[in-house]
């Protein structure tokens, strides 16, 4: 029983998401080959060889520089017959790539795996985590993306896996990389942050919304917003947490001046610890909060900032 784990990286460093996916691959119980597709990415291969994998497969070619779905899916499909499982982290890269591989192989795929019950049976969230489905994959090759927050990060050990170079396969694509703008914010990315502070319509204005920034700076937190706050123009679209926004599961989620609409809860209720601050004691957010503070947020925020 062998598993092909798809590495995510920037040609220099392995993305931590891959190490969470590695833990899931280990749980599947077989030997693991790690596939690195990139351009001048030998440093990534060297680092990856320290983990508990059998072989690090490296396809080093300008074809794979930006890990576009078209050439990468073709390469993975060409290797697939040797494997029982093909696994990637459920990042935007993994989600972009693996379904295309599935179609090339004429097999199904299981997205955002939360737990492995058997090597062919998995738990995954549906309806933005408002229900959990148990799914059995019936194809010979099982393709999975795994939710990184559901699996811990694998540690590097004293391993030294074999590194094997693969030839790039011929592939002509009609899709080309143009540019990339990675956000330069000092704040962590919303879906990867350890602490998230989210504001709702209760903040009242865009200017007041900025009050969250000082607290976020102290806690090295990302800032989120409800759909209502986004619609009201208090916050940017990409800050939206909810069923149609981003799904987050940080260690600490601080909900400020938001009611806890179903749509919003769907995006954050997997957070480990939830704090709610709202002056309306009947707000639905208190039903999911570990710690609720019924108070005026404009008084509480400065106090919290002082205390932290």
């Amino acid at each position, binding site marked *: 029983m062998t598993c092909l784990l798809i590495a995510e990286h920037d040609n220099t460093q392995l993305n931590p998401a891959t190490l969470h996916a590695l833990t899931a691959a280990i749980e599947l119980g077989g030997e693991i080959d790690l596939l690195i597709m990139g351009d001048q990415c030998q440093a990534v291969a060297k680092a990856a060889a320290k983990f508990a994998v059998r072989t690090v497969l490296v396809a080093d070619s300008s074809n794979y520089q930006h890990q576009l779905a078209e050439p990468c899916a073709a390469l993975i499909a060409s290797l697939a017959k040797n494997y029982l499982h093909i696994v990637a982290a459920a990042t935007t890269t993994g989600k972009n790539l693996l379904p295309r591989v599935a179609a090339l192989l004429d097999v199904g795929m299981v997205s955002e795996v939360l737990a492995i019950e058997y090597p062919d049976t998995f738990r995954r969230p549906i309806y933005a985590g408002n229900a959990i489905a*148990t799914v059995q994959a019936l194809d010979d090759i099982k393709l999975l993306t795994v939710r990184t927050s559901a699996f811990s990060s694998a540690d590097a050990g004293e391993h030294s896996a074999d590194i094997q170079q693969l030839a790039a396969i011929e592939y002509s694509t009609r899709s080309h*990389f143009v540019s990339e703008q990675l*956000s330069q914010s000092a704040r962590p990315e919303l879906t990867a942050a350890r602490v998230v502070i989210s504001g709702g319509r209760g903040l009242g204005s865009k200017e007041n919304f900025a009050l969250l920034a000082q607290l976020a700076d102290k806690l090295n937190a990302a800032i989120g917003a409800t759909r209502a706050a986004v619609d009201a123009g208090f916050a940017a679209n990409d800050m939206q947490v909810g069923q149609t926004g981003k799904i987050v599961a940080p260690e600490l989620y601080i909900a400020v001046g938001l009611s806890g609409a179903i749509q919003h809860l769907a995006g954050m209720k997997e957070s480990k610890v939830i704090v709610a601050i709202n002056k309306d004691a009947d707000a639905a957010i208190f039903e999911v909060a570990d*710690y609720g503070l019924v108070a005026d947020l404009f008084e509480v925020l400065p106090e919290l900032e002082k205390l932290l």
Partner: protein
Amino acid sequence: MKVLVTIKRVIDYHVKIRVKADESAVELNNVKMAANPFCEIALEEAVRMKEAGWVSEIIAVSIGPVVAQEQLRTALALGADRALLISTEQTAISTEQTASSTDQTIEPLNVAKILAKLVEREQPQLVLLGKQSIDTDNNQVGQMLAGLLNWPQATFASQLTLEGELLTVTREIDGGLQTLACTLPAVVTTDLRLNQPRYASLPNIMKAKQKPLEILPISELAVVLKQHSQQLKVMAPAKRKAGIKVKDAAELVDKLKHDAKVIP
């Protein structure tokens, strides 16, 4: 050029989900249904492309029960030129085991195969889909369709521009934005920030009643569908334990430091 847009009928996103007592599925009876929000964004983009003069015809497609006509009529009112419903109800009768939840269990690869067949029939230059549906949350169909057709794909699109045959797409990726250029035909899946869908006006709703809506049973498409997975169970997520109310900010900080240990 012609654009194909997919519209899925799902539970309205404001509705609280209930899992059936026998843990077989989510309760769909007497629940408010709506078009998948990401599909609405795809349709809006197609309409804007038509308004910009890039697109000559928008075909809205749904694969689902006969009642999904409602969502297609709305799509027509919003600017689609014609609609096509691939009815899944016959399969409900032939495979009784999954009869209760058939329209939810047409697996992504099978949806992609049906769409590939329609692409062959309609010859669109662009297929626009939502990045995922908010019921099954698979996020697979667009990528699978692109793979089956061997077309370029651009997922999580937040900006689209077209110059001749060259489509430039800005994608939302973890930690930022990526811009791709691909030549048509292509598959694009839409993210939240691509646009803000409009509402249908009453005159347009009236006009939509006259627009063509074709219903085609799946069986007439001559596409071979295979079962790739089986849903064994659907559970409600673990309930969070009831929390406590704290009296002030100081107590909150104390609890977070000493009980929850989530801040230093």
